[in-house]
């Protein structure tokens, strides 16, 4: 039941926020943070379970938006079915791509994902007929999504709470998936692929599945973002978007599943809430990234966890010299 503690805590935090915050613009910023958090969660899963750093996850973030835009414009499909279809297609294609690319180790994998992401960016900016090119495309959401009219759904506090709950649900589902045998297998492969193979584990499929899972999670963020803004442009596929999300993962800490969420919240707080610093937010974040990597590779979540547990360890550390 340990895996339920963090999601439960987060759910309470979300509800508390809606009780105390009044300002609508603050909610928009918070919603942005939640969307980033789900995005980063996807990258975090890949890093935590496969040990692979993706520099191209914007591919799945943007693909979800473009998928919705194209389906809603052309097919007359209900929005709910389209969302499901987009996630399904994305999961499946990510699994197939994963079968090929997860074998590529280390930095080469990062470069590979960077190339894939950048390719999709260029494709979306050039294919004017389908994607609207560099101008982007509006997404023709119907008046009602899941039976709720858009004006109600997109009210800043409502949409924040919905996004927050989706984030918690994603976290919960992912941690349940990773608590199974499948999760342990992927960790065994991450730690030593050769040994895992020797004890009879097929190593590529679980890794590809993790890649697909991470793509779908990031895709959910893309869906929320496209619902929130009703618009998609090639900018959301650009490599810098992937890199910023990755930065949240590292700063937040990837060893804890919820670390990327912490990273995303800290990012948005620095960028949008601390007004005076906002012009230099990227330098602050760059510095934070370097400090975290050099001095605290477990990230903010790792440090927090360490602090929360310190009373015990500090006590035992004090005993040693005296005894």
């Amino acid at each position, binding site marked *: 039941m340990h895996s339920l503690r963090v999601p439960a805590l987060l759910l309470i935090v979300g509800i508390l926020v809606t009780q105390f915050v009044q300002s609508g613009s603050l909610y928009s910023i918070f919603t942005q943070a939640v969307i980033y958090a789900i995005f980063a969660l996807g990258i975090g899963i890949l890093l935590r379970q496969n040990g692979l*750093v993706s520099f191209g996850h914007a591919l799945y973030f943007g693909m979800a938006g473009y998928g919705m835009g194209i389906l809603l414009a052309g097919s007359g499909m209900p929005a709910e079915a389209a969302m499901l279809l987009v996630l399904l297609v994305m999961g499946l294609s990510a699994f197939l791509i994963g079968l*090929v*690319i997860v074998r*590529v*180790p*280390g*930095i*080469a*994998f*990062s*470069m*590979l994902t*960077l*190339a*894939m992401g*950048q*390719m999709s960016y*260029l*494709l979306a900016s*050039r*294919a004017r007929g389908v994607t609207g090119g560099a101008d982007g495309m509006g997404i023709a959401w119907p008046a009602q999504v899941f039976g709720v009219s858009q004006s109600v759904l997109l009210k800043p506090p409502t949409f924040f709470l919905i996004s927050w709950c989706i984030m918690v649900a994603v976290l919960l589902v992912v941690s349940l998936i990773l608590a199974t045998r499948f999760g342990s297998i992927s960790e065994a492969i991450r730690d030593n692929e050769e040994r895992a193979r020797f004890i009879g584990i097929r190593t590529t499929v679980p890794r590809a599945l993790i890649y697909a899972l991470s793509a779908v999670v990031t895709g959910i963020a893309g869906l929320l973002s496209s619902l929130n803004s009703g618009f998609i442009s090639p900018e959301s596929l650009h*490599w*810098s978007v992937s*890199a910023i999300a*990755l*930065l949240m993962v*590292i700063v937040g800490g990837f060893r804890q599943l919820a670390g990327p969420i912490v990273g995303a919240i800290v990012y948005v707080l620095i960028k949008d809430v601390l007004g005076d610093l906002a*012009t*230099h937010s*990227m*330098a602050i*974040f*760059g*510095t*934070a*990234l*370097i400090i975290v*990597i*050099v001095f605290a*590779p477990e990230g903010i979540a790792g440090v927090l966890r360490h602090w929360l547990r310190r009373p015990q360890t500090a006590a035992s550390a004090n005993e040693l010299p005296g005894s």
Partner: protein
Amino acid sequence: MLAIHLFNGLVYGALLIIISSGLALIYGLRRVVNFAHGALYMLGAYLGFAIMQASNFWVALVLAPAAMAFLGVLLDRYGFRLLQDREPLSVMLVTFGLLLILEDVVVFIWGKTNYSIFTPELLHFSVTLFGESVPAYRVAVLFMGVLVAVGLTAWLRFSRVGLYVRAASTDPVTTSMQGVNTDLISAGVVGLGCALAGLAGIVAAPFLSLSPSMGSDVLIDSFVVVVIGGLGSLGGAFLVAVLLGIIQTLGAVYMPAIAVLLPFMLMIAVLIWKPSGLAGSRT
């Protein structure tokens, strides 16, 4: 028309040669995939711009790379050298942090507006090439690219320090056991790599405008060059740089959709079939 596009492609290729040779050198010695390289290129251009306001283009052409070399030596001494036992991925992310800081510093000093640098007086004329009139400055850029390619190759191949550099990029431990100060070599090479990035920046400034985002696209292009060319292989990088320059320029005119994707497809193919160059482990 074809000739002029081809010529412009070669000019961009020459620029890519200057940038990506620095990237390849740094990777060879420190096994660092330097995300800050595009930002260093941008910083070089802005430094050149600042120096030009006080004096002229030619002073900037010398001083800006010199300043970047100094910065590079510091970067190696207080960055890469301290991080050399870390995982290559961590160091790569550190250079990404550096990229964010450098971009912000440039915005802080020079603002977000685009600047342009005028072509130096001495090269402000046209020459006729294959029946087309082209700016002399671009011909000079082409020569600069050739000069860097030939100069680097000769230096690595025929000089004693070049031998040390080649040895240290193959096996730094054995090389240092043979009595070569590999830390000094690395500092020198990272300095040289940064100087080349700066040189590319100031050389590009008169025909590409200066903006805080100018490093981003060039960075990705030079990654493409270095990966397809084979890491550590300067010769391969030179060839791919020229090809990429031509593809990008011709492609933009004749077949936009396919041509922009081709380099990335090649890069993906290379990484899937032969990722060893970038695998990052070295014992």
